[in-house]
């Protein structure tokens, strides 16, 4: 990877220069198949580079792996399922071995899914593994995303990978929706029915859009084959391509690591790919696959035979989509109907549906995707970051993340408002109204609480550094006083608590230029200063060596020192360490 490859001019060949080729032929080849391949591809150099790659160890780095492996399980079992599934909405009379449905007119898609479940040996198992793996895939993607967010792993140079990951997570959810709609059972058909309603709600083009998607009137016979090609071809192709780019960038950037002794922003400390990570990560694939298979063996998911075939007329009480679409369904349940209105000209504006269905998903994912760029603009930080933040050390970011999760959770719980009403014997109207309220007040409260917790944790870290850890040993003094002994931290223990930098908010120094004329950029700077203030107003300074020194020599000196900082003003709860 050192010298840049320099192509020679082709005229050299005309001069009869065959020396380079000769040299190649003289070299002693590698043995066996590896040698044969390397002779033809020159793969040895890249392979050794790859196999020597170092990966840091942490449990939270496995979340992305779970996503990757459950996706592979989906791809594998999905191929199996295509051998028996018939993506057709044509009506047939069911004559398979599931007695309660015999003689009923169903779609071929539904009939073949029943066949997979009852007539093809092991078919139900593969179907269950496919569905469970899909659910776990989306969970793992979201949790992995949360890990990346809360540790600040999206910062330079990884913004592109954050955007790739954002798109991947959206595609994962859409892929899941397309997939569970395929069996054409009553539950999923109701989901497609609602989807048709969303599409129809689009201003101006809604009805045409619906007719294009369904190939005519809902439900028609086109939607199943179309969803099928989207589910097995279009989205998987994009998913796999983007996922490959995602992983390649991880290799290019080298994995981030948590701060710790010996770990710096300029190195990566861990274990080599060969053999440790091949065994660990490769083994982990089997663990993920094995656990999914065990779950699929005993816990039935999506028993389509119990729902019956899709028919627009029957009732399906307790209709919930798969969990990752829950938030979108929940949003629709919370929106009040009065938002719909008719404008001049007799046009219907379904503002109770359109913004909360068709717009909601792209809008939400756009917000997630642009976050790194917003934070970068606020901090003005253009450095590369390879050391992860501990979430407590970025209180505002952590609080924003938790507020977002709370908002999401409110919407997701809203999708189960009917189930909650039934199980808890509460009025569904009260539950819905409470969730409406919670949607607005929940996130700010969560933001505030999270931020305070982060700052408290930082203060606890400070105290631990300054006064040592509690030993649990109580000393009784000669005068009858009791004191718990605090043991000072070793440099190794101390380092993770003092290594981070504490950003300070920007202040606008001048709004006019040297000639006293208002600067055009002043408004932008003012906004940025405001954001910066919002992010970094509350902060807990890290302990400095001189501070620690001061505590050791004269504990009371700390009082004056802390006053400079807003957050350090609160009294220290623990008595200074020291033997009597």
């Amino acid at each position: 990877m050192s010298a840049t490859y320099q192509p020679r001019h082709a005229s050299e060949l005309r001069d009869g220069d065959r020396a380079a080729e000769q040299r190649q032929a003289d070299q002693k080849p590698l043995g066996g198949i590896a040698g044969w391949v390397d002779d033809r591809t020159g793969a040895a150099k890249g392979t050794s580079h790859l196999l020597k790659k170092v990966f840091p160890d942490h449990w939270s780095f496995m979340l992305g792996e779970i996503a990757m492996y459950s996706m592979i399980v989906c791809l594998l079992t999905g191929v199996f399922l295509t051998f028996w599934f018939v993506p057709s909405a044509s009506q047939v009379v069911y004559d398979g071995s599931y007695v309660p449905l015999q003689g009923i007119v169903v779609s071929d898609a539904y009939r073949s899914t029943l066949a997979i479940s009852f007539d093809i040996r092991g078919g139900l198992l593969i179907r269950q593994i496919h569905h469970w793996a899909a659910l776990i895939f989306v969970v793992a993607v979201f949790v992995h995303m949360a890990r990346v967010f809360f540790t600040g792993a999206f910062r330079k140079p990884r913004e592109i990978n954050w955007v790739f990951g954002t798109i991947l997570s959206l595609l994962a959810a859409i892929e899941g929706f397309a997939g569970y709609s395929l069996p054409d059972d009553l539950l999923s058909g109701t989901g497609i029915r609602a989807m048709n309603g969303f599409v129809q709600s689009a201003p101006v083009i809604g009805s045409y859009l619906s007719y294009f998607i369904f190939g005519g009137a809902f439900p028609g016979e086109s939607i199943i084959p179309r969803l099928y090609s989207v589910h097995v071809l279009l989205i998987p192709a994009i998913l796999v391509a983007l996922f490959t780019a995602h992983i390649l960038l991880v290799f290019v950037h080298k994995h981030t690591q948590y701060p710790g002794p010996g770990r710096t922003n300029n190195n990566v400390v861990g274990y080599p790919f060969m053999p440790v990570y091949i065994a660990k990560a490769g083994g982990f694939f089997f663990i993920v696959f094995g656990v999914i298979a065990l779950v699929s063996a005993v816990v039935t998911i999506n028993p389509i035979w119990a729902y019956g075939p899709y028919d627009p007329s029957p009732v399906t009480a307790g209709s919930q989509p798969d969990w990752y679409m829950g938030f979108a369904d929940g949003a629709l349940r919370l929106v009040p109907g009065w938002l719909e209105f008719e404008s001049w000209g007799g046009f219907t504006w379904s503002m109770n549906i359109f913004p909360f269905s068709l717009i909601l998903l792209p809008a939400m994912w756009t917000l997630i995707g642009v976050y790194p760029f917003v934070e970068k603009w606020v901090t003005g930080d253009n450095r590369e970051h390879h050391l992860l933040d501990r979430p407590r050390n970025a209180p505002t970011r952590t609080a924003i993340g938790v507020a977002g999760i709370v908002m999401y959770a409110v919407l997701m719980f809203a999708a189960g408002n009917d189930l909650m009403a039934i199980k808890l014997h509460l009025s569904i109207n009260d539950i819905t109204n409470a969730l409406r309220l919670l949607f607005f007040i929940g996130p700010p409260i969560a933001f505030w609480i999270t931020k305070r917790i982060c700052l408290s944790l930082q203060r606890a870290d400070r105290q631990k550094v300054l006064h040592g850890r509690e030993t649990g040993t109580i000393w009784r003094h000669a005068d009858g006083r009791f004191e718990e002994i605090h043991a000072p931290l070793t440099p190794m223990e101390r380092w993770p608590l003092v290594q981070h930098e504490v950003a300070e908010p920007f202040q606008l120094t001048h709004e006019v230029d040297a000639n006293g004329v208002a600067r055009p950029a002043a408004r932008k700077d003012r906004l940025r200063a405001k954001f910066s203030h919002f992010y970094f107003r509350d902060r807990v300074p890290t302990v400095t060596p001189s501070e620690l020194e001061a505590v050791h020599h004269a504990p009371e000196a700390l009082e004056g020192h802390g006053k400079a900082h807003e957050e350090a003003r609160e009294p220290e709860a623990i008595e200074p360490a020291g033997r009597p």
Partner: protein
Amino acid sequence: MNDNQTTAAPVEGNALVPASGDGQVLPASLAAGPDTFENPGLPPHIHRAADIDPAAAKRAERQVATMFGISMLGALIFVVAYFAIRDEATFFLPGVGKTSTQNVVLGLSLGVSILFIGLGAVHWAKTLMSDEEVVEERHAQASSPEARADAVTVVSDGVESTGLTRRPVLKYSLGGALGLFALPLGLQIAGSLGPVTVGELKETLWDPENNGGKPIRLMRDPEMTPIKLEDVTNGSVFHVMPETLQHSIDERKHVLEGKAKAAVILIRLDPNDIKVQKARDWGVDGVVAYSKICTHVGCAVGLYEQQTHHLLCPCHQSTFDLTEDCKVIFGPAKRALPQLKITVDDEGYLVAPEGFAEAVGPSFWERKR
């Protein structure tokens, strides 16, 4: 010094400085100078039992091999179970209920055979493979200035060689061609995906022209038998389809499309409970028929609360009050369920003479036009 910082943070725009700064454009921690802790370096390596004790290593080896052995056993059980267990066999699994023996045995054996490969490999890596940490240096992600300059030269030389800058005709004609080539493909897919007959959204099988202009009988769904007025007792609910659907059913064509718009719910209330005159007039002796397709996103509104006369949509909980002409009293729907005007024909069967007066189902842009 603190080597967590690669470089000083360049702050864009010199009008913004850190609050505590004196105009110096540096993060506080760097500006603070040497008063930071030093990275103590990697802690000493602690050897594992298997590294220093051959007996422990041997034990780990045996454990790994046992796990691989369990995996093999699982695979073999799967093969045997695949042939040995009857398809229809069931058994009672505590906590789950009656369940397919084959699915459980195949799943558990497959799971065990896969899981134990993973457990074995990870245990192997954690006990026997080297756990000496390795350090790899990072380098700035950006290419060197020379490499960048080189890339710029290659591109600009290439562009120069094409003459793109000197021959604007080529530039604009190429731009035009590239801009237009997607049009035929886009047109094909957009134009051919579906018909543009969206006017159908306002039509249902209840429209009399589907029956030669004659009133259309209300039929039970799915039996497709006609309903006499006296069959509808007080408080009873009928799920109804039009007589005209029979034609689709016989031909097995457009059955679901027909049902998706024509589904109707028929309920008898005490006429005095109906507060709206029009609703009473469009029914017969307190028997009223309403579209069962939710005006929100189109689910079937089929949950009837007999005491309160409320109709609830199971999808998003829009609640319609039957006594008030199915007006929305809660939830995300805006419009009342459209009422189907019904009468009784000569033979005493319920019929719909006119079809719906407005488009049924979810809102769409031109529904009122």
